[in-house]
């Protein structure tokens, strides 16, 4: 490390703390930025700075947005009667890209995980309950991931929400488009059979 300038080492350190980036990739990115010149590095640094300065957490749906309330919550055209609950902000983007959902969202920022000590209190569940208690919501669509933790979170939410007299639904589970039936696991196939529908 003696041949390496301090500034280079500092950036490599910083980058390698990012998820999915090891020390090798961090070095490659750092030397790329050196070669690319001051302009590119400044643009990136500025984008990083404005990330926190120019975003807020929507006080209604807890999504990350530019304004509070966010564009979705503030949109009068969207139905406030249906709330779609997702684990992460990126899940909102994915569902928005389908163009087939006209309700609003609620972002939990994670899922229940006993091993990581993430329980209901660490997720934005109290905020959801407060929204529901205001009384205009008729359906909660639970769109957590179809994983063990996502399912655990869904069950927890269902038990919390159903007593309020609100319909709780879960996104359909089954075969993925473009997949091959013979590679489907037992649980997925069983769910696809249970969730079959008339054509």
């Amino acid at each position, binding site marked *: 490390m003696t041949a390496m300038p301090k500034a280079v080492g500092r950036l490599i350190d910083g980058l390698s703390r990012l*998820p*999915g980036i*090891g020390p090798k990739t961090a070095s490659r990115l750092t030397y790329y930025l050196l070669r690319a010149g001051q302009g590119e590095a400044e643009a990136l640094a500025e984008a990083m700075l404005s990330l926190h300065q120019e975003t807020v957490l929507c006080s209604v749906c807890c999504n990350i947005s530019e304004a509070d309330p966010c564009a979705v919550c503030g949109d009068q055209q969207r139905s406030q009667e249906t709330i779609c609950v997702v684990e992460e902000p990126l899940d909102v983007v994915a569902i928005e890209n389908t163009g087939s959902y006209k309700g609003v969202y609620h972002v939990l920022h994670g899922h*229940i*995980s*006993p*091993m*990581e*000590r993430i*329980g*209901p*209190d660490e997720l934005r569940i109290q905020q959801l309950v407060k929204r529901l208690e205001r009384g205009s919501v008729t359906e909660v669509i639970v769109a957590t991931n179809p*994983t*063990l*933790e996502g*399912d*655990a979170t869904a*069950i*927890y939410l269902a*038990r919390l929400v159903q007593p309020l007299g609100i319909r709780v639904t879960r996104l359909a589970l089954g075969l*993925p*488009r*473009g*997949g*091959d039936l013979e*590679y*489907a*696991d*037992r*649980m*997925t196939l069983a769910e696809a059979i249970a969730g079959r529908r008339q054509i």
Partner: protein
Amino acid sequence: MPRPRVYRTEAVVLRQQDYGEADRILTLLTPGGKRTVLARGIRRPTSRRAGHLGLFHRAEVMLAQGRQLDIVTQAESLDAHEGLWHDLLRFTYASYAAELVDLFLPEEEENPAVYDLLTLALEAFASEDDLRLWARYFELSLLQLAGFHPEFFQCVNCGATIEPGPNRFDVTQGGLLCPRCGPEVAGARTVSLGTQKVLRYLASHDREAIAQLGIRDATHREMEELLHAFLQYTLERELKSTAFLRRLRSELSMYEKGRGA
């Protein structure tokens, strides 16, 4: 330990972490030890491996040696432990078992007995009724395999044979104290006769015999408190899943009466 470039093994997914665009880093427990492996593209819905390598799945996997991490090339689920899905309490107990194994077993240490114990525990937590009983069996068996098993048959202070009576338990020495030594040791806790009896039974009988046990709620509470205190002392930390379990219980007790809540 050197291993072939491509190898096949049975494995249980102990923990997982998202990585990169659509990959996941998995901590697998295999009979040959813990392995940290990379499962490429597993978060895509069309991944052929996704439904076979979920958390706590037991699966047959093919691994190829990579530069830093071994890479999953094939996976076939043997048991998804479906009982853990749709049941928060069962899920929490399974998490507890995985956390304990992860803490007790050093990376790469070969230990087929721990593997067998974990698969047994996951099956039990997915299907048995008395979850607390299996949690205690699992704790005692794991402590035994790790060389930390508490002593219930001889006084840990003077070596005298433990007779049914007012014996105490000392977490620091890891076992029961006879009625003569007990009062001399600061911090030693009294243990009811019923609890002493069940602990000795759990430490000396096999699965089939233990499955027949019916245990009173008060005994369950005392056993759990005692073993958790001992585990916390041995591991020098509080387990995340037990803290979670305690918190979950107050909510669950409304509808999970008597089942380990």
